[in-house]
């Protein structure tokens, strides 16, 4: 295991990217920080800049206007980084498939920048905080 991967697995700092979501997934992400779930006790923390992040939590369909910004955010994130696609929209545009303003799915947008990106899918509409925590644990034990 390289030292970078070893470092990635401890105290994951995440940056939250909304690319046109309905807020549900976003609220559930914030919910993970509040007393009931409290992921900060594992060192998981939301940060204000992608340059500080170990992982990206991407929600939403990836609208045309957001796709450009998503690519830029991914470029700015130090590698290696894990990308979590949270919710049905991010996993495959969901109910918004075929909309004129939808550039997604998000995994394709990220693969345009980096074909080898580590991408994990957490489906659900919205996924429960338990599902998100479980997703993070599974990815961190797999890499």
């Amino acid at each position, binding site marked *: 295991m390289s030292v970078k991967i070893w470092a990635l697995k401890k105290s994951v700092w995440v940056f939250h990217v909304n*690319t046109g979501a309905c807020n549900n997934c976003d609220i559930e992400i914030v*919910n993970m920080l509040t007393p009931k779930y409290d992921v900060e006790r594992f060192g998981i923390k939301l940060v204000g800049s992608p340059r500080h992040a170990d992982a990206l939590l991407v929600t939403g369909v990836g609208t045309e206007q957001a796709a450009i910004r998503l690519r830029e955010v991914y470029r700015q994130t130090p590698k290696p980084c894990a990308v979590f696609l949270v919710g049905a929209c991010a996993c495959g545009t969901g*109910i918004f498939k075929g909309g004129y303003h939808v550039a997604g799915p998000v995994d394709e947008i990220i693969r345009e920048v980096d074909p080898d990106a580590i991408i994990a899918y957490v489906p659900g*509409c919205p996924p429960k905080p338990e599902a998100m925590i479980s997703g993070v644990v599974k990815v961190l034990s797999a890499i």
Partner: protein
Amino acid sequence: MKKTLHKPILAVGPFHPLQEEMEFFQLTVDGETVTDIDVRISYNHRGIEKLSETLQFDQIPFLVSRICGICSASHPLAYIQAVEEIAGVAVPERARYVRTIINELERIHSHLLWVGLGGHFIGYDTVFMWAWKYREPVLDLLEEITGNRNNYGNVRVGGCREDIPDEMVPKILKELDKVEKKTDMLTKAVLDDPVLHARLKGVGILSKNDAVSFAVTGPTARGSGVAIDVRRDDPYAAYGDLDWNVISQTEGDVFAKAVVRLLETFESIKMVREALKELPKGPIAVEVREIPPGEGCGHAEAPRGETFHYIRSDGGNRPTRHKVRAPSYVNVPSFKASCIGQHVADVTLTLAAVDPCYSCTERLAVVDGHSAVIHDYEALLQMSREKTARIKKEIGAPEFKLEDI
């Protein structure tokens, strides 16, 4: 030679580390005072009105509940009411009560969410953690009734999809008692706090005239003395049968909006209790086979204000036009009136006060001619906290010392 004055512009957004949608604000500032404000949206535009024309009438509730995750009971309800108006459907009694209960439970957790975020934006994270902890039981109740914590998908043309089982009623009442006790404690703590008074009063005032001109709705309007509420003005579901009050305040500042939301939470708890007590027996849906040609308007009071849906049908399976107006669509532009003349440190709070929570405080860049100063999220939070400390000193609030513990 004519000298041109470069007005510094603060760029806010489009990403925010904590909350919700992408928005890109440009604040023109003079020193610390905001003189103009502009916004670029589109990041979140998903083309729902066009998509809706490709779906069938009974599929659309699932689409419209995903317009906004936290108004996911009121959007489908407004849509369904527009369709029921075209079809001339009378909804069974029990369905009207179930719709009311789901909508009011949504309002409780949504208002608590806002109170928490409001606390966070002024650096009062205790309020944030409290409020978000106390809304959890409400989400659990909704999960038990509808099968999902949000996006309930519980209405359909002619009634409801899921019933509230009678044996669940005592449990809901018990949980409501707990939520009420905690909200009471929270409300007293918030409204008695001298720092919060000093920090929130007189900030981001939206005058009554501006509220009318910007056509704002919901707590934003009721905080400015415009006492409108669709639940009372055009009663739908079971609101006409219940005993409750419309809360309004006249000041128009952030504090007034906070008071309106906190007190409305109690009204909602009262309404759910009463609706559960009088929950009629009977079916929860009637069969609707056909939507005739015609047009209908439906509106419902979402936690943020009036949700309006317009449907036109040509007698087929799909609407020919579906217009949606979410409450934030008219509430957000009112920042032109409420933010100008404010301090930069107050803008995030003022923007958040209408509850779109677009306060994209994370990537702020002051661009002044050739030099650029970057204020990040932390710096802005710091500015806000410094103002809190300054006020605390001015009003002579006791200084907190470690050795006192």
